[in-house]
């Protein structure tokens, strides 16, 4: 059989190429994806909105924030300085900032003085427009005010204090942090907290960065505890979440992969009592995993953690084909002829593969990058494991096994007991009874589409982040507003309209907002402000007032010059300024103009942004978390519709091979299992998610395998039946371990698969009773 050997050789080469490729990719930089945002699908209508979401997450995400706390402010500052110095010395960070940003009043003045005619704080705009405005009172109030509020300006250039009030109300920081002794601090009832900001060297989502940063922080923390035992440390940042997710996933891959392997080894040893089937089976699984990983890396470039963890649980299912192959050898005993026996079991293996692929194929169709990757991984992995069994094993296991099936009589006896007692009528009655018992559960089924099921967030980190948010007073919400315009001017004008609307809502579910037009108003607004000044405070009226107040002559001249010069501050000029650098991310260049991000602070979610901004042109409210939840809900509904369709497809495959009646008999145990699992969920009160529904399609695709194997083997093949039990055990072990995953989505997958497939295996012998065994 030359062609057989040739096919095996070609397949072996392909697997080797895939293995070398995967090894090469992992040898360089680990192509692991730990970015939580990358797990989420694109949800926003426009590319601009997605770009804004990215810009925001990078701005806020790539930094690590620390608060060093101590009851004594001096100790807190000292401890924070030491902590920052050690982070800096570690070399893991691009920049470590412990010093408060210094607003240089002179530089600020130089920046804004030439443009001051167009810059009026909202309060001054109102005052100047009012009929009661008195220029003299305004001047005297400014000159005799007991304190300089915020940024002091030179009375020569700012006699009325308009610029001073403009600068003071700039939305620099809307936090509770106060500069104290050169550091940003905040006090709570017990402690003074000092802020340290660190920018990791490299992406916060790269494993190498994470390892370096975590080690540096642990080191600095240990020294902090040594030197100041009573100091506290809070931390937050994507790098910590990313590291926790990666470390958790690595642990789970080890646990699930290791657990499955041990399970496979033990079960197969019990059945085959020989090393050869064990080693060869594992080779087919390894081929499957290598090809699956290669397929994901080729198509997606990076492999998600969630895929890797799920992939580890796939071992339990991929080994099934090899188990059936060796079980057939065990049954054949001395009469084993590899090729002929393979030809006999091939249809069963083909049908089993086809139904599994129908189940996993559904996953590839979802828009969730992580889930579709799981689908692809399983698809490629199962297909490759199957091909390895079909192409390689007949050549590698030509000789009959060292044992025969005498040792595996016990499972056979159990099956006999079932066969002798069960009648088709009894089985139908049992199914009807069980399903009736499940009905009350069905009526109580609830659903859950919370976005949080996609990501695992360690409780300790979440708690620290909440404390930091509370202390610092930053926005915690995922909502923001996006203002789009054909050019800078239009975007700024639209943002001003939005700001006017938002200003009225401050204090009603909103503590404040940060808009770029707060720093640089539209040209139109600046022109209007200058006109207002020209009208209310013309040079000929102001000059005598300034003189009377005792100001030097230069002041009157400066006022005249200011009113005469048309020099508005443009968005582009502003973006070049050092003071604009922290806010640059709020300006998003688009293909069709300019987009501005408006950040909300203290957003408690009670404000209906949609209706608030509905009539404002170019303004859209963006809520990534809500969008993802909405998408989860939509696909949960789609999955509900897909399920019966997938059931029909599986039935079609079964009917093609076994005829409609026998096919239905094979499918029935799995359908009963799904029905009872759902009833259980409803009765216990566990909510259905998209992931549990996807798990149902997997139960449909993989649960029928056991009925297929039983029917194919018939009642007279003891090893094959034992093989079914071994297959089921390894699969259940893998999915059971998956149910222990800290990732909510995988946990839901694993749990329902465990329940559903257990029941499907338990009911599988029904297929023999209801249909006719194939001989």
């Amino acid at each position: 059989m030359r062609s057989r050997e040739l096919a095996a050789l070609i397949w072996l080469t392909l697997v080797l190429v895939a293995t070398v490729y995967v090894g090469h990719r992992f040898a360089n930089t680990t192509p692991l994806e730990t970015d939580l945002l990358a797990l989420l699908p694109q949800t926003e209508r426009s590319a601009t909105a997605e770009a804004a979401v990215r810009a925001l997450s990078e701005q806020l995400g790539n930094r690590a924030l620390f608060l060093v706390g101590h009851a004594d402010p001096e100790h807190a500052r000292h401890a924070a300085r030491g902590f920052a110095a050690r982070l800096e010395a570690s070399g893991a960070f691009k920049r470590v900032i412990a010093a408060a940003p210094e607003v240089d009043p002179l530089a600020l003045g130089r920046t804004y003085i030439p443009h001051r005619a167009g810059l009026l704080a909202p309060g001054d705009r109102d005052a100047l427009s009012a009929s009661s405005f008195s220029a003299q009172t305004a001047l005297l109030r400014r000159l005799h005010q007991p304190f300089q509020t915020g940024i002091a300006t030179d009375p020569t250039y700012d006699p009325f204090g308009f610029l001073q009030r403009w600068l003071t109300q700039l939305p620099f920081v809307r936090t509770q942090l106060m500069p104290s002794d050169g550091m940003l601090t905040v006090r709570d009832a017990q402690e003074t907290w000092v802020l340290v900001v660190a920018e990791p060297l490299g992406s916060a989502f790269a494993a190498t960065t994470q390892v370096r940063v975590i080690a540096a922080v642990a080191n600095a923390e240990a020294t902090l505890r040594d030197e100041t035992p009573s100091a506290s440390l809070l931390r937050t940042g994507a790098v910590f979440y990313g590291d926790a997710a990666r470390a958790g996933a690595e642990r789970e891959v080890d646990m699930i992969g290791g657990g499955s392997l041990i399970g496979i080894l033990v079960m197969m040893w019990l059945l085959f009592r020989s090393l050869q089937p064990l080693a060869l089976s594992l080779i087919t699984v390894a081929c499957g995993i290598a090809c699956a990983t290669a397929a994901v890396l080729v198509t997606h470039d990076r492999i998600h953690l969630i895929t890797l963890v799920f992939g580890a649980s796939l071992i339990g299912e991929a080994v099934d084909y090899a188990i059936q192959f060796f079980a057939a050898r065990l049954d054949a005993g001395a009469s084993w002829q590899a090729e002929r026996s393979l030809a006999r079991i091939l249809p069963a293996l083909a049908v089993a593969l086809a139904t599994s692929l129908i189940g996993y194929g559904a996953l590839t169709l979802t828009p969730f990058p992580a889930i579709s990757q799981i689908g692809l991984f399983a698809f490629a992995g199962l297909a490759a494991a199957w091909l390895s069994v079909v192409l390689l094993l007949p050549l590698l296991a030509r000789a009959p096994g060292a044992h025969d099936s005498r040792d595996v009589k016990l499972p056979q006896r159990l099956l006999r007991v079932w066969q002798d007692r069960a009648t088709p009528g009894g089985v139908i009655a049992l199914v009807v009874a069980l399903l009736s018992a499940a009905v009350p559960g069905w009526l109580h089924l609830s659903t859950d589409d919370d976005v949080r099921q996609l990501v695992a967030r360690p409780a300790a980190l979440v708690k620290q982040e909440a404390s930091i948010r509370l202390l610092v007073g930053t926005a915690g919400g995922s909502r923001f507003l996006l203002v789009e315009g054909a050019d800078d001017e239009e975007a700024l004008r639209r943002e001003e309209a939005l700001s006017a609307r938002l200003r009225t809502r401050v204090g009603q579910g909103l503590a404040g907002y940060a808009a770029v037009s707060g720093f640089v108003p539209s040209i139109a607004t600046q022109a209007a402000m200058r006109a207002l000044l020209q009208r209310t405070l013309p040079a000929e009226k102001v000059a005598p007032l300034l003189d009377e107040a005792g100001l030097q002559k230069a002041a009157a001249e400066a006022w005249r010059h200011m009113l005469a010069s048309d020099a508005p501050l443009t968005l582009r000029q502003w973006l070049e300024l050092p003071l604009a650098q922290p806010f640059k991310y709020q300006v998003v260049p688009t293909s069709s103009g300019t987009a501005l991000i408006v950040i909300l602070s203290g957003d408690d979610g009670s404000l209906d942004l949609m209706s608030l901004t509905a009539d404002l042109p170019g303004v859209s409210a963006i809520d990534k978390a809500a969008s993802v939840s909405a998408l989860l809900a939509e696909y949960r509904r789609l999955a509900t519709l897909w399920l019966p369709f997938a059931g029909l497809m599986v039935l079609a495959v079964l009917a093609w091979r076994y005829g409609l009646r026998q096919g239905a008999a094979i499918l029935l145990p799995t359908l009963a299992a799904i029905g009872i699992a759902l009833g259980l969920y409803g009765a216990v009160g566990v909510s259905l998610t998209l992931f549990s529904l996807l798990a149902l399609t997997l139960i449909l695709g993989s649960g029928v395998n056991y009925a297929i194997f039983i029917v194919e083997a018939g009642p007279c093949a003891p090893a094959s039946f034992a093989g079914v039990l071994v297959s089921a055990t390894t699969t259940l072990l893998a999915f059971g371990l998956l149910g222990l995953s800290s990732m909510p989505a995988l946990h839901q997958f694993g749990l329902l698969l465990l329940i559903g497939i257990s029941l499907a295996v338990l009911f599988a012998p029904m297929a023999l009773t209801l249909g006719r065994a194939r001989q």
Partner: protein
Amino acid sequence: MRRQMTSCVFFVLILPFAAMAAPTTPELAAHMAQRFEQAPVLRAEFTQEKRMAAFRKPLQTRGQLTVVRGEGVIWQIDAPLKVAYVLAEDRIVEIGEDGVTQIRAAQDMPGLAQVGALFRALLGARVDVLADLFAVVPEGTLDAWRLTLTPRPGPIAQAIREIRMNGGRHVEQIRIDEANGDSATLVFRNFREDRTLLPVERERFGLR
């Protein structure tokens, strides 16, 4: 605060020589706090003289001051214009001659809150609060003290070079030297201690 006071009493009783040395910052803080516990309301007249490069002559301001422990400060200017500022913990209220009030909440202007806090700390001689923002060097005795305040690095250091203040039972004089060479001198006299607020003062603090 109470512990600092106890330690202060301890020092006075056990070590009578201590009075001969300059008081430490906690001692002075306790001393001033004790004064305010006896009479939480203090009224005084003030004059302010600012010398600035932008002006041909010094700028004079006259008025009255009310410091209330726990509430804040009323700074009422009588000449050359009439306007009153109420500095409370969370807001600054400006009341014009026409009675028009302008309220600025501290949370809207973080800088404002800090300036307000500094002003209240200066006028109330809250030495403990001042020590957060300045390096404080006390001299003299508890009954006739002088303080030199040098700003710690930060925004205050950019505006202020040094503050000197002196007093005994009360703050009597404050001189602020600004970084740009301008200066302001505040002189307080006619101190009157009280235990309760006048109705008009209660109204200004928004108390019923």
